[in-house]
């Protein structure tokens, strides 16, 4: 086929596909509505099956025998025991089977991770914002399990050691940084292409051969650790197979239960057949492909912890199977969408469990099981296909908090797909988010990936990055409080408020009296950032050591390129690309504050640095007008003003350079990310007043977004500012959130406008963006609590305005209008 024919074909395909991704596929089928109904009818709970089995294992005959085993083997045996012994459960109507926990919707309990903190909420589990339902005996069991695991948590093992106590405190106080890695590493996009198309028999055979020949695939003789590694792979695969077989047995048993309808019997038998085959053997059908992914996903969850376990580019991975099934007429577009919706609903079975104390750092973010769609192949050719649209349509049927959906956009992204993606945003679930291939690939190659591998990126969790199946990215290792470093820089390393236990928290930088220029301030800031980063890296290093011994992850290692070649677990540095990522909160606040210092002290000379420090320490108490001026009149990041945006760039560079300078203990790189979950709220509470007018204790800016209320010119200006920043160092990506009321972006015009916003942002260099379309209830919340909901763009009689700028009576009218869908 020549290029012209190719183009003609592409054009025809595009034409043909437009009607195929229409509203007809976006209404839930009866089955999907029923599954969703069941899921939502079951209260959130906590599942103790995992810790109970893991604690029982050492007492079994096999466990007692293996006491002296290598840690890798010991872990693999325990995991295999867990997977084989847990109760299989199959729920009504579902087409993809495999229970995540022992309950319909529940959190798994990870004694070796951070789950123990839930004990803090023991006496008010039902009264939490996200209530957890447990019976009384279950609560007793929870206490028993929790206490039994008390000293075996990774954080405890790493930090409760002589000489590390100060760090333990720092870690617990979570002021300068919050180390998430203590809970687990999670956050992975396994090599699902190989899982689906080769099956786990592939790693099993490699491990088998290496053990037989006692050599690595390249012929190097194995050492003791490598032997243990390959053994751990084989043991774990056996566990996964048993888990799948148990599911198959149950499905079969249920199929022949009296009263089972013929239709459901056929479905159950098909599931049984699938689970006897995958994930060990290559999937033969579209359904088996998804079933295979799901079982490995459950294994990944059981092994490490739930956060950010992602599927990668399912539209690419499943396409061959989908096409084959269509050709053989064994599925239709409709049934395939239903299978996909059933698969996506499985992701709603799990949730994270944090105590409410920890929840302020991560509230509402769910688990983020990411599916990435669209994008290009290794050579940069568009890979968007019919499944890309089907995945969105399936999501439109369910509209749930999981999974996370990510759309890759590049110059040749077909317009029908962008249109479908934006139509999905209009549903108001905050999904999908959008990523620019150009910016992401540039950052990943800068972080050491080959262009081909970078082009095969998939999103981990919310926004984090991996070349799928080739990366071990501790992508949410820690979150970092950048503005606090400015506080420390102005105050010789001491926080404004109460004195830090043991005196100084940060580095000993010079007092303000000795700072003669803006550069002196920036230097002190840089020193504080470097100091805090170095401390954090030290703690993470201890955790990494602990992981290698106590929590290696064989499932993760069998789906990550590099491990089987090197004979090394991912925690031992087996992955082709090894990364640790640190995320920043308060970037815009830091940038705006630097700008304000420069203006007020060094250019306009309205205050000396010492006076300004006093104003900050006293939280603007005697200078309310100055605070108002800074908040409302002073130029800020987010309005498309290059001079101000440059300061945010400076803050980002100081942070990025401090991060990039380090290597983790596996020999991997440190990379920065610009997003903050809800950490900016918790960090904000611990941070004093800032020179940009933000009062003490107020929340910080999040991700790449402007500081609260700082954007005054609407979404296009925010995007201009964000796109103007150089993102090449941000290999773990960034998050930019736009918020609109439904009316502003409804209909065809709204869809076109959103697509125009995103494509322009990306063409100007933007990296990531997501848009939340708010309903009346959210607007009501914004009216009652304006400080918590800044930056919402609403339509007022023909033009757009910020919700918080409007008079309460007008806000009410807009809420009314949104509630009733009036024009």
């Amino acid at each position, binding site marked *: 086929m020549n290029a012209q024919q190719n183009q003609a074909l592409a054009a025809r395909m595009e034409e043909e596909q437009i009607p195929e991704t229409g509203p007809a596929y976006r209404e839930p089928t009866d089955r999907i509505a029923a599954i969703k109904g069941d899921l939502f009818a079951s209260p959130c709970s906590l599942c103790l099956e995992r810790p109970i089995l893991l604690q029982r294992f050492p007492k079994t005959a096999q466990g007692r025998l293996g006491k002296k085993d290598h840690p890798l083997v010991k872990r693999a045996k325990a995991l295999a025991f867990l997977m084989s012994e847990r109760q299989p459960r199959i729920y009504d109507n579902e087409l993809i089977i495999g229970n995540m926990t022992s309950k319909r919707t529940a959190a798994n309990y990870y004694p070796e991770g951070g789950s123990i903190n839930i004990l803090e909420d023991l006496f008010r589990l039902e009264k939490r914002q996200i209530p957890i339902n447990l019976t009384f005996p279950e609560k007793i069991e929870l206490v028993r399990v929790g206490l039994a695991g008390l000293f075996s948590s990774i954080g405890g093992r790493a930090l409760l050691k002589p000489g590390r106590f100060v760090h333990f405190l720092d870690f617990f106080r979570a002021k300068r940084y919050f180390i998430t890695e203590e809970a687990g590493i999670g956050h992975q996009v396994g090599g699902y292409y190989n899982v689906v198309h080769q099956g786990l028999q592939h790693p099993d055979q490699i491990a088998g051969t290496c053990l037989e020949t006692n050599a690595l695939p390249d012929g190097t003789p194995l050492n003791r650790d490598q032997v243990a590694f390959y053994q751990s792979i084989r043991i774990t695969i056996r566990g996964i197979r048993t888990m799948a077989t148990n599911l198959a047995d149950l499905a079969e048993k249920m199929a022949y239960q009296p009263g089972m309808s013929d239709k459901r019997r056929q479905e159950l038998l098909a599931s049984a057949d699938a689970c006897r085959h995958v994930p060990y053997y290559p999937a033969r059908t579209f359904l088996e492909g998804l079933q295979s992914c799901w079982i490995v996903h459950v294994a990944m969850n059981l092994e490490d912890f739930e956060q950010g376990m992602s599927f990668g580019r399912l539209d690419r991975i499943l396409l061959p199977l989908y096409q084959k099934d269509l050709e053989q007429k064994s599925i239709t577009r409709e049934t395939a969408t239903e299978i996909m919706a059933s698969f996506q609903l499985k992701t709603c079975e799990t949730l994270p469990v944090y105590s409410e104390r920890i929840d302020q750092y991560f509230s509402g973010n769910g688990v983020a099981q990411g599916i990435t769609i669209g994008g290009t192949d290794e050579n940069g050719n568009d890979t968007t296909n019919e499944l890309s649209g089907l995945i969105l349509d399936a999501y439109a049927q369910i509209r749930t908090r999981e999974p996370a959906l990510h759309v890759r956009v590049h110059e040749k992204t077909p317009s029908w797909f962008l249109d479908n993606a934006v139509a999905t945003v209009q549903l108001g679930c905050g999904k999908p988010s959008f990523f620019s291939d150009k910016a992401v690939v540039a950052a990943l190659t800068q972080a050491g990936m080959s262009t081909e591998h970078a082009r095969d990126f998939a999103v981990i969790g919310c926004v984090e990055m991996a070349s799928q199946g080739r990366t071990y990215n501790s992508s949410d290792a820690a979150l970092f409080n950048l503005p606090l470093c400015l506080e420390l820089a102005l105050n010789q390393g001491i926080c404004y408020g109460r004195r830090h236990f043991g005196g100084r928290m940060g580095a000993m930088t010079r007092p303000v009296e000795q700072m003669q220029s803006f550069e002196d301030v920036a230097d002190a800031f840089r020193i504080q950032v470097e100091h805090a980063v170095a401390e954090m890296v030290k703690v993470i290093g201890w955790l990494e050591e602990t992981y290698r011994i106590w929590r290696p992850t064989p499932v993760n290692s069998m789906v990550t390129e590099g491990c089987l070649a090197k004979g090394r677990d991912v925690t031992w540095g087996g992955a082709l690309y090894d990364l640790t990522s640190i995320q920043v909160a308060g970037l815009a606040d830091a940038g705006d504050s630097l700008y304000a210092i420069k203006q007020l002290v060094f250019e306009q000379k309205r205050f000396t640095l010492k006076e300004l420090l006093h104003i900050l320490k006293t939280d603007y108490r005697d200078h*309310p*007008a*100055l*605070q*108002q*001026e800074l908040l*409302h*009149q002073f130029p800020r990041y987010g309005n*498309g003003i290059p001079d101000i945006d440059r300061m945010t760039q400076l803050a980002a560079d100081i942070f990025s350079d401090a991060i990039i300078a380090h290597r983790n203990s596996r020999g991997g790189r440190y990379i920065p990310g610009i997003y903050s979950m809800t950490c900016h709220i918790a960090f904000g509470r611990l941070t004093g007043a800032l020179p940009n007018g933000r009062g003490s204790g107020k929340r910080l800016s999040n991700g790449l977004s402007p500081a609260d209320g700082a954007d005054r*010119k*609407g*979404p*296009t*200006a925010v995007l*201009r500012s964000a796109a103007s920043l150089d993102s090449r160092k941000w290999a773990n990506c960034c998050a930019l959130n736009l918020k609109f009321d439904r009316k*502003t*972006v409804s*209909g*065809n*015009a*709204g869809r*076109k*406008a959103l*697509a*125009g*916003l995103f*494509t*322009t942002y990306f*063409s*100007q260099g933007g990296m990531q963006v997501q848009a939340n379309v708010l309903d009346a209830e959210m607007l009501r919340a914004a009216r009652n609590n304006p400080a918590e909901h800044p930056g919402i*763009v609403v*339509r*007022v*009689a*023909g*033009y*757009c305005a910020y919700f918080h700028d*409007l*008079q*309460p*009576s*007008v806000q009410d*009218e807009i809420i009314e*209008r949104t509630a009733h869908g*009036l*024009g």
Partner: protein
Amino acid sequence: MASGNPKQEAAGLVFSIQHFCLQDGPGIRSLVFFKGCPLRCVWCQNPESWKPIPELGFKKHLCTNCRTCISVCPEGAIVSPGQIRSEKCRQCFACTDACPSGALIRFGKPLSVKEIREELMPEYPFYQNSGGGVTFSGGEPTLYPEFAAHLAGSLKRDGIHLAIETCGLFHADPDTLSASGTITKKDTAQTAHPETAGRLLTLADLVLFDIKLFHPEAHRQFCGTDNRMILDNLAMLARRYHQKGGPLIWPRMPVIPGITDTPENLEGWGSLLAELRLNRLTLVPFHHLGEAKREWLQLEPGPCIHTLTGESMEKTLRVLTKIGISCFAPGEEDWPEYISS
């Protein structure tokens, strides 16, 4: 003060430039709001656009009572926050510059073509990627025919799609206006000479032509002037569009319950539009959102107008559709059909 005077037209009096507007023409647009309007519609949602002179506004809900404004006013014109003695105020705007919270605001600033273009230029990519552009609105852009034409010309040279929203009154004698009692001579800028206004309009790709009341007397009652000239202008523009390839004319009508949505009014306009072969109309639903602005400007509250109901909107649609007029919600027009044809 008469900014309409051609000699002083190095700058146009603009009260706002808004980006990301989706309702006034196709795609993502920026709106340039000119200050000054020859009409005084009772339902007006932008009363700050009326006077062709800069004005002070006060947003009470933002005021923190810091009294900075009182201390900076060189004329002692501010009695207490928000209470300004207009006879003393000399419009130096020291107070709005100093107000830290943005409670005291200035409506209207003379801007040069260069300044406006600099504000718009960074938005060009958004227009290009969404099929959008710039819309002149107001107030009434034709009050500044020379200046607006100058600005329009420079935007057209940049390849930007340009829409002009007009009330249709671009040649009227101010004396007649004041006779109606609604507008004093001081307030009213000279309306544009038909030729200059005509030149401005030929530069536009799209004219959003606001129609309100069909009967001249009703128009005088609710909008402050007779509408004969408006009708003539509409016919003239329609002719130009059909014959000489003038700009696309797109009528729009605010749906004001009990005022513009009466069957007589709808039928009157409907038949005229059909006759002029402009069988399309954007219906802009009425909101009470302009009322807050009246407070900011310390104007009397407008007359009580009922909230628009879905039912009456449907009735309006029925009447117009029967006459053969296609109706659209703002932002939902089928522009592409017209733009490509």
